[in-house]
């Protein structure tokens, strides 16, 4: 199974975006179009009738091989606001016959005239694999694959940053915590660099920072005091307890002491710095409650924006999909 970023599979012959699998190698113009389109969905939740007919008659299958609440829910709300029919499949799959059983599942659902698959899997590359084996009118969105990518999360984060901070070229952004296991961080780094952020820094224990991170144009540090200096946007990552092998952090308490975002550590950043977190948050592990609930935190804005951004991505890739 390949996790290679493949720009070609994401676009059709006319250069229209057809799948949304990874941000890597997407042109800035495409990202800006997605953010701009999402802008027009922001007030949509305030209308009398919160439904528009764009995907009327289309079937969206949320195919989640890995548990998720908020991502699946916001995808479901987004698709329903666009008038699509939504089917949620929370499946577990046999590890022995992996690839085969996924494609069999997908082909079965495709035979029921699914128009869009929203896929999450613990293996990197599954959404690519599925996109590669479907007829051209069927679309795929990556809702998180292994350690590889979580592109819609990164786009809603970019949307939230733009909403609060405007111009990427002036921004220094710090991503803190478990960079190594984080598909969110990987997608955020791609998006920030394509959108021209002034500086991207990652902060975390040496054991949780990929050794090749500098090749992505990122500065790395193990120290929060240096790391947060002059920072405009702090993105805290979730410590993925279920992915820890036990060797990577000494203890949760020590992790919190060194890297947990507290009001004291927040003072190292710029006074108007915002605090983000893709959720769900571990209070007292990577972030103190007083920070998560403070006026500097935009964590709940991220959730709300997730609906508009996912509507935007669906609207962008589903255009011209009539058979």
């Amino acid at each position: 199974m390949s996790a290679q970023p493949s720009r070609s599979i994401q676009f059709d012959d006319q250069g229209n975006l057809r799948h949304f699998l990874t941000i890597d190698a997407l042109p800035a113009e495409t990202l800006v179009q997605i953010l701009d389109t999402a802008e027009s969905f922001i007030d949509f939740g305030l209308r009398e009738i919160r439904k528009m007919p764009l995907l009327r008659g289309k079937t969206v299958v949320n195919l989640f091989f890995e548990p998720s609440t908020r991502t699946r829910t916001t995808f479901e709300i987004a698709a329903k606001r666009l008038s699509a029919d939504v089917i949620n499949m929370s499946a577990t799959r046999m590890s022995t016959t992996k690839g085969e059983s996924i494609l069999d599942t997908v082909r079965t659902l495709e035979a029921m005239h699914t128009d869009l698959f929203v896929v999450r899997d613990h293996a990197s590359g599954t959404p690519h694999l599925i996109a590669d084996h479907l007829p051209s009118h069927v679309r795929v969105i990556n809702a998180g694959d292994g350690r590889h990518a979580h592109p819609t999360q990164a786009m809603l984060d970019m949307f939230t940053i733009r909403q609060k901070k405007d111009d990427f070229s002036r921004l220094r952004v710090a991503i803190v915590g478990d960079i190594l296991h984080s598909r969110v961080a990987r997608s955020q780094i791609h998006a920030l660099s394509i959108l021209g952020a002034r500086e991207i820094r990652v902060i975390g224990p040496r054991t949780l920072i990929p050794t090749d991170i500098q090749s992505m144009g990122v500065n790395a540090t193990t120290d929060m005091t240096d790391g947060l200096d002059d920072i405009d946007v702090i993105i805290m990552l979730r410590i993925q307890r279920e992915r820890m092998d036990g060797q990577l952090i000494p203890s949760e308490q020590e992790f919190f002491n060194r890297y947990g975002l507290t009001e004291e550590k927040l003072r190292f950043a710029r006074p108007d710095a915002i605090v983000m977190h893709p959720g769900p948050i571990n209070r007292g592990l990577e972030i103190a409650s007083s920070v998560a609930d403070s006026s500097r935190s935009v964590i709940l804005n991220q959730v709300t924006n997730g609906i508009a951004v996912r509507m935007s991505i669906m609207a962008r890739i589903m255009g011209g999909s009539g058979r």
Partner: protein
Amino acid sequence: MRTALDIDAAIERMVSYIRTENIPEPLLIGIHTGGVLVAEVLHRKTGITEPLGTLDISFYRDDFGRVGLNPQVRASHLPVSVEDRNIFLVDDVLYTGRTIRAALNEIFSYGRPARVILGVLVKRTGRELPIQPDFTGMELELAPDQQARITIEASSLAINIAEIPG
């Protein structure tokens, strides 16, 4: 091709219709992009007090499945509730009628207006839906391969008529 069409007279006709109708507290809504240009002029000249509303009907078009989304989508902006209000809906050119169908659907997603009155600067030939304007600036007979577009030139409205390359 540039034509010596009298836009000022066309606008005056529309202004005079809105004034004559004498509707209490009407809302004026323009459809992006050309319709907003026309609506801005009408809003100024008629002295309608409620702020101008704008609609981008991209999400309500009937050709999304064929051609997809316009690269630039603007947010619709209706600053005042449409519920039980009288609305002047304004577009630049009425051609097939599909834009107006989409605009009506979008307006109704905001609420139930008392009345919608349709005004267009140019009423041209080529209707594909049973939609007709209530008031019109001018009428043009154009062939299917001709396109009329409203632009702003030297801060006044202009009509450009171009052949669509077939």
